[in-house]
C-alpha cells in the first residue's frame, strides 16, 4: 500500500501531504524535509525510484510540481508511476489543464480528489469518470447549500 503522498514545488515548498499510516507530527516533518531535499538533489537522468529506509520512494515531476509516493517493498514501482499519472489526469480534468496555482488555491479540492481515488493507501476506484462524478456530486451539494444561504440572507434583506 501507499504509505504517504507528498506534493512539493521545485523550490521545496510542500503543496499537499497525505499520510496513510499514523505518524507523529515530528516524524512527518522529518520525512518531508529529508525526501524533498533528496529528490530535489537528484539529476534528471536518474531513475524515478529510490530506496529510503524500509520503503521504496517513487517520484515524478510534472511541470513545477513533484509528486512523490512512499510505497512498501512488495508494491510495484512502475504501477505507482501510473497511479501518480492517474491522479494528475484527474486534477487536469477537474481544473481544466491544472497548474501549481490551482493546487495552491484549491488545495482542499485536491485533497478531496485523493480521497475519492485512494482509500487507506490503496486505489479504490479505477474509473476516472466515477471519481470525477463523485467529486462533482459533492460540489453540487455545496453549491446548493450556498444558494440556500444566500436566499435566506436575501429574504432577510441582508444580502
Amino acid at each position: 500500500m501507499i504509505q504517504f503522498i507528498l506534493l512539493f514545488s521545485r523550490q521545496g515548498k510542500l503543496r499537499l501531504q497525505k499520510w496513510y499510516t499514523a505518524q507523529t507530527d515530528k516524524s512527518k516533518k522529518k520525512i518531508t524535509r529529508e525526501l524533498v531535499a533528496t529528490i530535489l538533489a537528484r539529476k534528471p537522468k536518474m531513475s524515478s525510484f529510490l530506496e529510503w529506509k524500509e520503503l521504496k520512494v517513487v517520484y515524478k515531476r510534472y511541470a513545477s510540481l513533484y509528486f512523490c509516493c512512499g510505497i512498501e517493498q512488495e508494491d510495484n514501482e512502475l504501477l505507482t508511476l501510473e497511479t501518480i499519472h492517474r491522479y494528475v489526469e484527474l486534477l487536469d480534468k477537474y481544473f481544466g489543464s491544472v497548474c501549481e496555482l490551482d493546487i495552491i488555491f484549491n488545495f482542499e479540492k485536491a485533497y478531496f480528489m485523493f480521497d475519492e481515488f485512494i482509500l487507506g493507501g490503496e486505489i479504490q476506484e479505477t474509473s476516472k469518470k466515477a471519481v470525477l462524478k463523485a467529486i462533482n456530486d459533492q460540489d453540487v451539494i455545496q453549491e446548493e447549500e450556498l444558494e440556500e444561504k444566500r436566499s435566506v440572507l436575501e429574504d432577510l434583506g441582508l444580502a
Partner: protein
Amino acid sequence: MSNPIRLRDLIRQIRSAKTAAEERAVVQKECAYIRDSFRDEDSIWRCRNVAKLLYIQMLGYSAHYGQLECLKLIASQRFTDKRIGYLGAMLLLDERQDIHVLITNSLKKKVPELMDMFLPSVRSLLSEKNHGVLLTATALVTEMCHKNTDALQHFRKLVPNLVRILKNLIMSGYSPEHDVSGISDPFLQVHLLRLMRIIGKNDAEASEAMNDILAQVSTNTENSKNVGNAILYETVLTIMDIKSESGLRVLAVNILGRFLLNNDKNIRYVALNTLLRVVHADHNAVQRHRTTIVECLKDADVSIKRRAMELCFALINPNNIRTMINEMITFLATCEVDFKADCTSNMFLAMERFAPSKRWHVDQMMRVLTTAGNCVRDDIVSSLIGIISCTPDLHGYTAQQLYKLIRDDITQQPLVQANTEIYLYLVNSRPMIIQFMYASEDDIVNILEKVLNWSPSTIVTREYAINALMKLSTRFPSRIQTVMTIYACNMNLELQTRAVEYTSLFTKYNSLRPSIVERMPVLVNSQISHSVNDDQQQSQHSSDDNVQTTPTSEPPTVDNTPKPAEENLLRILDEIEPTVSNGISNDDSNNHILGLFGNITTPSNSTADDFLFGAVPSVSTMTKSQSNLGNNTIPNMNAIDKNGLHVVFSFERNDTNLTINLQASNSTASVMKNFVFKAAVPKTFNLELLSPSGANIPPNNSGNIRQIIKLSNPTKDRLRMRVRISYMIDGTSMSDEAELNSFPEECWN
C-alpha cells in the same frame, strides 16, 4: 467582530509576503484571529477558519488548536462543514492526540476478529462487474491472506475466479473508462497478479492453475509503454515467487533481459532489482543476459550502476572469471568513488573463489590495487599479502612488479602498504628477492624512508613503513637507527612510541634485536584454502599444490637466482646469517647457500607451534609444512544451512587444540544484520570465541563473515557443540539454536 478574510485572500496575502518574517507576521495575525473566533464559538465561519488553518499547517506552522473544531464541523448539519471537518480531522490529528482516539473509537470495528464474517461474502464480490468493487475486494482478500493463514487456505479455492477475472480483462475490448494506453485496467491486473503470488506461493496446485494465464499475460501484454511494463513486471514477480513451470521462469527472466534494453531508466532499474532477487534461484537463465547486464555498468544513473555491479558479482563463475574481472576493472577505473571500495572487495572475493591460477590472481590483484587508488578497504591489503606469502614461487615476480609500481608513485596508500608489507616479509626472509627487483637494497630503504617521510601518507602506511625499516635494521643498523631517533619525537603517538621502542632496541637491548626482528611467519589465510567449492576448482588447486611439492626433494632447483648474482647473494646471506642462526645449534656450512637452507629447516621441524608453519622462508620448509597440512586436512563441515544462511566450519588441529574457522554467507536477497554466533561445549572443553570479522552478511553470497573459534580438548573427548545464531533480515529478527554432533572425527581423534 468583522467578517474574516476569505481563504483564497489569505493564501494570496501569504504568497505576496516578500520575506519569511513578513509571511510569519501575516500568519501570526491570522492565527490570533482564528483562535479568538474559535473561543467565541463562532459556528458560521468555523468552516472557513479551519480551512485556513489547514493551509497554514501545510506551511509548517502549528495548528493543533483546530483539532476540536474539526469534530464540531463533523457534527454540523451542513455538508460543506462536514467535508472540511473530515479533511481537517485527517490532516490535523496524529496518533498522540486524544481526539484522534475519540474519532477512531467511533469508527473502529475490530475487523481482524470479524474476519470470518467477511469470508463468505468475498466470493460474490469477486463476481461483480464493477472494477472498483473488484479492485477493493482483491485488496481485501490480499490483506486477509496476510493477516491469517486460515484465510489464505480458504482463498486458495478462489484461484479459478481470479484467473477468470484476469482473463476477461485481457480479452475484453476497448473500455475508455478503465483503459490506460490501450491496456485494460492495469491497476486491477496488477492487484490480481499480486494476489495470485500470495496464494500460489508454496502451493503446487494453486500455482499449476495459474501457469496458463501467467504465460498469456507475459506474451500478450504490449510493452512499449510504462503501463504494460508495470504489468509484465508484476507478472515476472509472481512467476518467480510461485511454484511455476521452468519454461515460464525462463520466459520471466527473458522479460527482465528485455527490460534491460529498454530506454526507460525506471524499467532498467526494476529489471536489475528483480534479477538480483532471482539470480540464485535461476542462475543459468540470468547468466544468459550477462552481456546486457555488463552494459548497464555504463549507465548514467548511479542506482542502476550499483545494482548492475552487484549483479555482475553474483554472476561470476570459474568459466567467466577472466572476462568479468576485466570488465570490472574497466568499471573500477571510471566509476564513482563510492563504488570503489565495494567493487574491489567483491573482486577480491570472487578471485579468491575462482582464480584460474595463482599468477593470474596476483597479477589481477595488483591491477585492481593500481586502478582503485586509495579507495580500498584495509582487509584487502592483508588479503593480498596473505595470498602472496602463500605462493613462494611467485615471490620474485610479485616483488618485482610491486617495486615497479611503487618506485614512481607513493600516493596510493593501499598499494604502498601492501608493498611495504611485502618487503617486510619477502626482502628479509628471502634476500635473493632483491635481485628480482632490479634494485639495490639502498633503493629499497630509500623508498621506505620516502614513504615514511612523505607527510600525506596515512598514519597506517607510515606505521607499515617504520616496521619494515626496523626489520631491515639487520642490514643497515646505523642508517635505520638515525631514522628511529628522528621519529622518536614525531607528533604522532603511534609512530613515536614505535620509534622510541626501536631506538632502545638499538641501544639497551641490541643483543636481542636480531631475534626480535626475525623474519615473518607466513600469513595463514584460511579463506584461500577453504573457499574452493566446485570440482574444477578443486583440480586446479591440487595441480597448484603439485607445483609446490615437486621441489621438496631438491630445494636448490627452485632457487632460480640468476647466476651472476651469486656472489652478491652470498654476501647478503653472510650478513643475515646471525639472524638465521640465532637459537639454532648450527655447526657447518654457513657460508654455503644450500647449507643455509638445510639449517633453516631444523627449527621449523622442532617448533611446537606447528601451525605457524613457514616461520622459515625456504621453499623446502614451506612445502613441507603445506604437505603436513595436507595430511592433516580435516574435511569442512556445514554447520548451518537454513533460510539462506550458510555457516561452514573449517578446522585446523594441533594436538588437543582445535581452531575452527567459521565462515557465514547469505544467499538471500537481503542483507543479514547484527549477526551473532554463540556456542557452548561440554565442560571438559575450553572454548574461546574471537570477535567476528563483521556483523552484517551481504546478500546474494556476495561476501561473508569470518569468526575464529578456539577450542582446547585436553581429554580428547568427542566434540559436541550447541550453537545459537541470531540476526535481523528485512526488519525481522531471526534466531535459531542447533546441536552440532556431526563434527569430523579428525577433530578430536
